[in-house]
């Protein structure tokens, strides 16, 4: 192996990017890992639990974070995005921009700054359902484990309270953004995915009802560090629901929205239905679907759901949701098996929204569904959900394969 070879750049620090990074570093190569958020872990770190073993995200991520911390071959940047890429395989020049780091790395996460901070910001980690102070720590297992200051909400020098409160002199409110130039041999784009914007599906009325949430929001509702802390309460009146409905293919397999199948939402809703049964064994759950698309070992969830008397799978796509005065939601579908129009009144509706490849400012080839194609200039390797919808275990396998490609 060539010792003078330049490092591999990995764009995106979700579970795929992190996996690619440690796999490459652990075979003795240099890696630079960048992430646009102030923390690593991407979407997975927001989950309550994930496939296939239903571990909480701490399970897989913490060990990987430790592998990053202990490995001197991995250099990492958070709050950082790529600005420009030039060059070719073996010789890429990349400009990256790190947004102002108002809290320096000597932060001990004592929390005094947040205590004294008078400003509030919507917590992106909980999809804005909760607020934090403008000085905040992203979440309990955040890596890097340090506080941040939200540029948009902080009043800076006119307030200055946190600067005085910090015993470690870790706060510098005059910090500026930083441009770094890198020379790398190859680039892995692990830019990941976003949940489809449910407000675009007009007939499902997501924007008009607090009690309609998406599947990713559901994860944040019930997570132990989430909105309701291991509970599922509806936002309109904080009650525990006795009837929950899942709407499959909310946007997916729909030419007006996402023409493709997002691959994971069926399994995810089955998982969610079972989670509700664990929390509230008497709550009735209905899952409205076109086809139940679960494969591999996830089929066990289907069997388990079918055996559960409180969960009913209804074949028929929900075409309309209307909110009643008491905040309940009336779903309309045609029950295909009986050929009747049915109306079902639920207290909470969960939309199984699909996977959209994250937008980036990188100039990459995308297919008609906006996923990053495998055909890029040599040395640029897309991975996992940036190239097609897949679940966590498939993403991790894809990350290993990307790692092998990147070091060749």
């Amino acid at each position, binding site marked *: 192996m060539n010792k003078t070879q330049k490092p591999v750049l990995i764009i995106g620090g979700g579970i795929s990017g992190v996996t690619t990074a440690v796999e490459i570093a652990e075979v003795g190569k240099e890696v630079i890992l960048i992430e646009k958020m102030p923390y690593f872990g991407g979407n997975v770190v927001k989950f309550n639990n994930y496939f296939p073993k239903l571990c909480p995200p701490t399970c897989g991520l913490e060990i990987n974070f430790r592998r990053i911390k202990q490995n001197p071959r991995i250099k990492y940047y958070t709050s950082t995005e790529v600005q420009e890429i030039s060059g070719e395989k073996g010789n890429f020049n990349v400009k990256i921009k790190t947004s102002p780091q108002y809290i320096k790395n000597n932060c001990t996460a004592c929390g005094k700054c947040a205590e004294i901070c008078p400003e509030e910001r919507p917590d992106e980690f909980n999809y804005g359902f909760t607020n934090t102070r403008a000085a905040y720590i992203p979440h309990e297992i955040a890596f890097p484990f340090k506080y941040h200051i939200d540029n948009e909400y902080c009043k800076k020098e006119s307030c200055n309270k946190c600067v005085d409160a910090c015993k470690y002199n870790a706060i510098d409110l005059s910090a500026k953004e930083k441009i770094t130039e890198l020379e790398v041999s190859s680039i892995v784009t692990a830019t990941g995915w976003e949940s489809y914007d449910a407000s675009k599906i007009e007939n499902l009325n997501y924007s008009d009802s607090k009690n309609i949430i998406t599947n990713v929001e559901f994860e944040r509702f019930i997570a132990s560090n989430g909105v309701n802390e291991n509970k599922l309460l509806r936002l309109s009146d904080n009650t525990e629901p006795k009837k929950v409905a899942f709407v499959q293919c909310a946007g997916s397999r729909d*030419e007006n929205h996402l023409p493709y199948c997002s691959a994971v939402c069926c399994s995810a809703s089955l998982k969610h239905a079972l989670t509700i049964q664990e929390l509230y064994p008497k709550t009735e759950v209905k899952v409205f679907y076109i086809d139940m698309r679960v494969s591999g070992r996830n089929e066990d969830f289907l069997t388990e759901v079918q055996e559960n008397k409180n969960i009913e799978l209804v074949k028929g796509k929900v*075409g309309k949701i209307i909110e009643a005065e008491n905040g309940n939601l009336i779903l309309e579908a045609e029950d295909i098996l009986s050929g009747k129009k049915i109306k079902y009144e639920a207290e909470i509706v969960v939309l199984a929204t699909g996977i959209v490849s994250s937008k980036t400012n990188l100039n990459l080839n995308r297919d008609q569904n906006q996923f990053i194609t495998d055909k890029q200039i040599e040395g640029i390797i897309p991975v996992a959900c940036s190239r097609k919808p897949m679940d966590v275990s498939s993403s991790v396998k894809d990350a290993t394969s990307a790692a092998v490609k990147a070091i060749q």
Partner: protein
Amino acid sequence: MINIQPDIKFKKQLKEVSKSSLNECMQCGTCSVVCSLAPEEKPFPRKEMIWAGWGMKDKLIGNTDIWLCHQCGDCSTYCPRGVKPADVFSAVREISYQHYAKPKFLGKILNNPKWLPIAILIPIIIISTILYLAGTLQIPEGPVNYSKFFPHVWLNSSFTFLSFLTIALGIAGLRNFWKDLRLQYPDFKPSGSFIKHLFSIRKEIILHSNFSKCSNKKSRKIAHLLVFYGFILLLFVTAFAIYAAIVHKYPLAITNPFKILGNVAAMMLLIGLGIMIMNRIFDRKDFGNSTYADWLFLISMFLLTISGVVVQAARFLDWGIAYHLYFFHLICVWFIIIYLPYTKFGHLLYRVVAMVFAASAGRK
């Protein structure tokens, strides 16, 4: 066991007319939910879409639901697969006119552009023959007087005769349609007379109440109401004209109340048809795929009305080409009347019969 007998020829025709891919339908049922006319039990159009995919002609022709649809297009708008159920329904209706056509060849020549010259030639030959028999097949001298060209006795008797012939042929087709409806709903035991049930749907017909349930595109309902009442008014005025020609002074003066009524009706038709044509040209997305048969009916109605107005002007202004225009107008009249059961005009018959059947079978 369900016995499925696909009719490949029918499916091909349906695909051609509707421009829908049919088989891409994944039977999710979104269409049935967003349709504001679909009943709770066995809603449409989801079930029709699988029949269409299988080419099950028997199920689709002779089906009330095909005619309960007023084609607002919501199903096509929300369809996740772009299979356009609304266009499939309108295609089935179009194929129905041909299927029940008596005699068959008329159904064929009116739904294929290649036979259009023949379709136009038939009324020309009929009119020329009548004029020849009346001995007036030439341009008369003197001030314009249409009765010199087409004597009233000949005009009124031939017009009345052909109208009745059309109605008789239309009823023959409707009888077969009714038989098929009965086959489709074997459990249905008819109760009450046809007239009684026709009376029960008067509100839907008079006020177009289903039409307004159907769509937020208000201009569709207004246009149809204008054309519907404009046409009825003109029929009424024509009936009076025939009566006047026998016992009264004819032609009517421009200030005669019936003449005025006739002109108001013509305006209603022109405005209504104008909206329909504009909508189809400028709002393709919402008005779906307009077929040849749709345009043929719309344009022939438009030509009928506009030529009627021009012919009237030619009489009062004593134009030299008045008789040529009159001849053209007569072709339009004959074209519309004798082809009624075979063109889109046939919806007047088939839709009403299907609605009566649905009412008597208690399908809401």
